[in-house]
């Protein structure tokens, strides 16, 4: 598998998105964004880009699962990762359909929401499953005590932060379906992040190796998407739209990192 074109795509897309969306945070009223990179043009850039990298992530995670072999316990985890990314791809497809094909604002909630929610749950299942598999690899992945400590620590820290973050969102809403989803997304993200921290702790042992690069990108990507969800819940609850470019960038970079991580993993499993 030739790494060069994928690497060029990943680097090029990341740099281009940052160059477009970061200045928009500060100069949204400039002619650049009112005449050239209008809201519609930005949607045409970010929507298909997210869709592309989610699709690539789904494919490479699925290929990883196949390359690991059906009798390999880690393959089940990679299949779950692929399934989760596939559901997010389907959710993103719905968003692109509204934004680009119908050219209307995406309703909230929409059909995309059950797909994103289910996808996050499947990814969380993968993140809960894989640490136990890798811990039992027989390699020097640490002691049970260290694993238990990282589980307890991540659960405690995320629960504490979660309560602080969720409280204003719970208090500010009207109890409708949109409000319930604004609570559901960040809650699921905190549930997803807990095993991701444990996985990060385990995978830090691989640092310096190519597998570390794969896992670092995948886990950082998941963290970016979770951060995007939490920020989205905050901003939409508070009615702040000015930070939308930041959200676009956060989600897109998250999907790009996940795709790159899955690609690197796939290329390592390929003999």
């Amino acid at each position, binding site marked *: 598998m030739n790494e060069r074109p994928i690497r060029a795509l990943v680097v090029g897309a990341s740099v281009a998105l940052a160059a477009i969306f970061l200045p928009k945070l500060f100069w949204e009223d400039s002619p650049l964004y009112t005449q050239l990179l209008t809201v519609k043009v930005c949607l045409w850039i970010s929507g298909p880009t997210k869709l592309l990298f989610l699709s690539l992530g789904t494919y490479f995670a699925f290929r990883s699962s196949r390359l*690991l072999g059906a009798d*390999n316990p880690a393959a089940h985890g990679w299949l779950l990762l692929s399934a989760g990314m596939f559901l997010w791809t389907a959710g993103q497809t719905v968003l692109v359909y509204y934004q680009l094909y119908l050219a209307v604002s995406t309703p909230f909630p929409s059909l995309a929401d059950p797909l994103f929610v289910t996808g996050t749950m499947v990814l969380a299942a993968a993140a809960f499953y894989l640490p136990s598999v*890798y811990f039992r690899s027989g*390699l020097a992945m640490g002691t049970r005590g260290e694993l238990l400590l990282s589980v307890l620590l991540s659960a405690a820290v995320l629960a504490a932060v979660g309560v602080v973050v969720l409280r204003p969102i719970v208090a500010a809403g009207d109890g409708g379906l949109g409000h319930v989803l604004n609570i559901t997304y960040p809650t699921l993200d905190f549930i997803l992040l807990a095993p991701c921290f444990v996985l990060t702790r385990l995978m830090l042992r691989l640092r310096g190796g190519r*597998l570390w690069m794969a896992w670092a990108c995948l886990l950082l990507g998941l963290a970016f998407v979770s951060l995007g969800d939490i920020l989205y819940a905050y901003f939409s609850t508070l009615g702040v739209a000015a930070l939308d470019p930041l959200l676009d960038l956060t989600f897109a970079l998250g999907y790009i990192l996940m795709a790159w991580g899955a690609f690197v993993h796939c290329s390592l*499993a390929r*003999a």
Partner: protein
Amino acid sequence: MESNVDRETVFRVAEEALVPLIGQSLASASIRLHGTKLDLASGGLSQDQVAPFLSALGKGLRLFVGSKRTEEVLDAILNGLHKPGKQGP
């Protein structure tokens, strides 16, 4: 591998093959761990001692990169041990 191979040579060759994939820290820690578990004393190791050692490393690596890549790594280690100058007394 007909004659005995020095334990440190086995460890070094295994480490060289594993580091690009799993990094220096995990590679050396895992090699030491399995060396201790299999009670590989310093000095010459017979093929009967090297085989289970490589099998134990391969079992763990297989979870990360699958069987085919693991076979490649294990072959690279065996080839490294066959090279002239790597043999023990």
